[in-house]
């Protein structure tokens, strides 16, 4: 009975378990109990997402849906569900949060309880945004994510944290508020076309046949908000600051999941809502993505600070995701590139998350991240060296790691649509190898230049508990991509197909006012 109830409310439970546990964690008087409570909550949330993974039926569209009226007079609902595009990202968020809590277990500094509670709050926000199929609920979650992240960077961050966190939240808020204006316009457009208010995303998809002229500004506003979040060059300037100043945990979650919100938003909203404008904009976005790839790689190469290097590598990797999402061939999105983009999102979350963890491991021991302060660590820290090399290889996309699969699929799809972009992007792969291997070399190999490095502790059991699953994932995603992609493929194909159908057949809008009776789902009858 209980299990049945859990099964039928699984999406809601997954979203709100962390929030509830966060409240309990804050109220809990004992730090020890609070920590275990937080971990148990995150673990429960992970198990819930595993449940969704297990019962997810590939190819049958939106699943685990739940809908309640929220503001019925305005057509705003609480509507959540899961499809192939969000499934992997949900798994990644719940999984990473568990690891993060373990990683921050012996936390130096004050307010650990609050820190754990904020992490769980953040998890709720991210899961809400990933599962929301109501535009207003999505926007609420999208903004809610900012608040805990703001405090995580601002309270527990490095020396320049206040500047970094303010820049982070203002940049994102500018983008999102413009997106809000566009979302409201879209909502009113729907009312004008169909006579009822609705913020249901599935309803709003029906507006995709509108002429490009009326969608132009709406697409721009949505794309801007997502581009800032991704961050796409030239909107990336908040990212290096936020990443560098954030505590390790914050960087991991930022790189691991929050940046994907931008690319996820692109796939979920910007492309299917405004296919016509997207077609015109795809080359622009691709070019910006390629600039991001090369620029991020070049800047990363020159960084003396390991964390900044990883931060800029994120700009470069996310560029790949954008290029993959924008590979348009004969007015069709290439399903290969799209699959690669989705896969690369997960892969980047795992490998870059792991890299940030590893840099954090170094920082905990030496309180510096400058590459020149290290060297020859392979001898005192052999396990660390193994893990760093696995993460690096995953990040540069060596065959046998997840990075290879993602980048290969993206380049394959892109080459068919635009060889020039693909060639330039593969230059980014090359540069990626250059700077990541530089990082590895400077930290791990050569003589030990600093005396204090000779006696550094290797990774502890707790750290190993965090890093080992990530290392396994990096390799598993490379050798068994089918395991991850089989559930995702149908949704991606569906996105690519509906998009091409729109382009090829010019789906006509149903006649005005056919939905006046109040039906909000489909006008087929």
């Amino acid at each position, binding site marked *: 009975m209980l299990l049945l109830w859990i099964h039928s409310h699984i999406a809601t439970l997954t979203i709100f378990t962390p929030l509830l546990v966060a409240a309990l964690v804050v109220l809990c008087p004992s730090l020890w109990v609070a920590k275990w409570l937080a971990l148990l909550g995150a673990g429960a949330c992970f198990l819930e997402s595993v449940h969704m993974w297990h019962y997810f039926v590939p190819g049958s569209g939106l699943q685990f849906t739940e809908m309640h009226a*929220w*503001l019925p007079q*305005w057509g705003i609902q609480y509507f959540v569900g899961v499809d192939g595009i969000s499934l992997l990202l949900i798994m990644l968020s719940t999984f990473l949060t568990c690891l993060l809590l373990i990683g921050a277990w012996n936390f130096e500094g*004050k*307010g650990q309880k609050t820190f754990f509670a904020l992490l769980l709050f953040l998890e709720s926000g991210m899961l809400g945004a990933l599962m929301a199929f109501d535009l*207003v609920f999505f*926007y*609420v*979650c999208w*903004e*809610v994510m*900012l*608040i805990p992240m*703001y*405090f995580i960077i*601002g*309270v527990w961050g490095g020396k320049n*944290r*206040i500047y970094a*966190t*303010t820049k982070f*939240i*203002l940049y994102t*808020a*500018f983008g999102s*508020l*413009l997106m*809000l*204006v566009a979302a*409201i*316009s879209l*909502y*009113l457009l729907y009312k004008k076309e169909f006579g009822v208010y609705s913020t249901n995303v599935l309803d709003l998809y029906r507006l995709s046949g509108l002429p490009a002229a009326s969608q132009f500004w709406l697409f721009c506003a949505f794309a801007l908000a997502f581009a800032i979040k991704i961050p796409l060059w030239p909107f990336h300037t908040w990212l290096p600051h936020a990443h560098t100043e954030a505590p390790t945990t914050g960087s991991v979650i930022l790189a691991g999941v929050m940046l994907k919100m931008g690319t996820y938003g692109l796939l979920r909203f910007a492309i299917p809502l405004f296919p016509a404008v997207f077609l015109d904009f795809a080359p622009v976005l691709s070019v910006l993505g390629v600039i991001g790839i090369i620029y991020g790689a070049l800047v990363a190469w020159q960084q003396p600070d390991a964390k900044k290097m990883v931060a800029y590598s994120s700009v470069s990797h996310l560029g790949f995701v954008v290029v993959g999402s924008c590979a348009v061939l004969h007015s069709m999105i290439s399903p290969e590139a799209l699959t690669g983009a989705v896969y690369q999102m997960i892969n980047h979350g795992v490998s870059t998350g792991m890299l940030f963890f590893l840099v954090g491991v170094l920082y905990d021991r030496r309180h510096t991240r400058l590459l020149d302060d290290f060297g020859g660590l392979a001898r005192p820290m052999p396990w660390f060296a193994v893990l760093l090399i696995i993460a690096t290889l995953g990040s540069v996309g060596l065959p046998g790691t997840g990075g290879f699969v993602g980048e290969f699929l993206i380049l394959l799809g892109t080459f068919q649509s635009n060889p020039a972009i693909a060639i330039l992007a593969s230059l980014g792969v090359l540069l990626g190898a250059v700077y990541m291997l530089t990082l590895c070399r400077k930290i791990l190999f050569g003589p030990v230049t600093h005396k204090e490095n000779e006696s550094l502790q290797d990774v502890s059991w707790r750290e190993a508990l965090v890093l080992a699953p990530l290392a396994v994932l990096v390799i598993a995603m490379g050798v068994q991509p089918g395991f991850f992609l089989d559930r995702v493929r149908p949704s991606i194909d569906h996105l690519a197909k509906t998009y091409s159908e729109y382009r090829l057949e010019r789906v006509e809008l149903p006649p005005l006012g056919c939905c006046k009776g109040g039906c909000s789902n489909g006008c087929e009858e």
Partner: protein
Amino acid sequence: MYTLAPIPAAFYGVASPVLILSVGSILAMLLSVAGKWNRPTINFGFLFLILGLSLAAIMKNGPQIHTFFEGAFQWGVLPYVGSLLIVAVAGVLALLFYPSYLQARFFTGEVIALYLLSLLGMVVQLSSNDFITILIGIELSAMGVYALVGYVDVNRLSLEGAVKYLVLGSVATAIFIFGVALLYLSTGELSLQAVGHPATGPMQVWKQTGMFMVLLGLGFKLALVPFHSWAPDVYEGAPSGITAFMATCVKIAILLLLFRVCGFFLLAQPEWSRLFLYLSVFSIVIGNWLALVQSGLKRMLAYSSIAHSGYMVMLLSVAPQATMLSTALFYLVAYSVATIVVFGVMMWLEEKNCRNLHLDDIAGLGRKYPLASLALTVGLLSLAGMPPTVGFLAKFLVFVHTLQGERFGLVIVAALGSAVSLYYYLRVLVRMYMHEPDPISLLAPRFSWLTTGVVGTGVVLVLALTIFS
């Protein structure tokens, strides 16, 4: 037209809120000379007796429409909701005064009389359809507030604020009266509907001028840019509780009156909505911009409240629609609850320090008083319009309403304005959570059940109204 007619018996029932408030204020004046009976506790009880009775009377009236004396007194939906909101908010603010350092100053007979008189004025100005009665209401409430600003806590700043408010407020009233006179000249009527009636021939000019002056006077009272220059000084000079009273009750009354007048006026002359477009753009841009550079908390909140008036006036920049009033009321409720939370925390912090808070005073507050800081955070985020607070929903509805009138530029300005506003609200959070506490800056306030209850309820409302509205 104005002959003494016999007073119908039903009038006493419908006008009971007004009558209770006026009798209450007269009795309160008597209390001030009652010698040993003039004690804070007794005055506190008396004030809540009167407020409770008037609330009960308002609720008993309900939203039905009753008209007396050819519209000089008219009850209806707007007076009902408006008075309910105003009296309730005033009661909550008085609760916050009880634990504050001004307890002995506020709960005296004369101050309570002033408080009740200004409430009376607000109820009167909402429950009338006649410009003369409205004028009396406006003046009554303004007179009360002028005195409250300078009298509750007497110091240089508060006196300066009171004088500024008095002078500029009187100018505003004068402009308003002049406008009403011109309206009377051109249409021959004093009822609110008259502004919707067409004037003919040369009178057209006078009617437009009159209307312009009426709106100007109300804009002055609301501190819309460019008539805002008094607001920061007055808000800063007044004791925090009175500042909150001005930012909530006075603003609610004037705004609802403005909406009422414009409800008639914009229907007749929709092209005037452009005036409100400019007023709201200026208020949002300049209010938010100047708030960025303030280091005193109350000055910052003064500018932010100017910007909030701008957001509300956005509703008038489009042709009147059915949802205008409900959206405005929702925004007012959301804004008032958040303001009460913010000012509740501020008044609590000021208790032992007896002065205005500076940004530096709240450094490290998050560690010293986590719950108070949490409340302040929720209140400020709601004012900034961040989800999941009710401030977001209010702003969302205002944007929806304005976009329905296709004022895209205005909404974009407002959206960017609220992104900018995030910066100065966040500055407070930065001080609270990300700076080290300064041990000597702030004396530790006493715990107070009343403040905790009020602020706690406010925080719950800020979060719950989003979900269950």
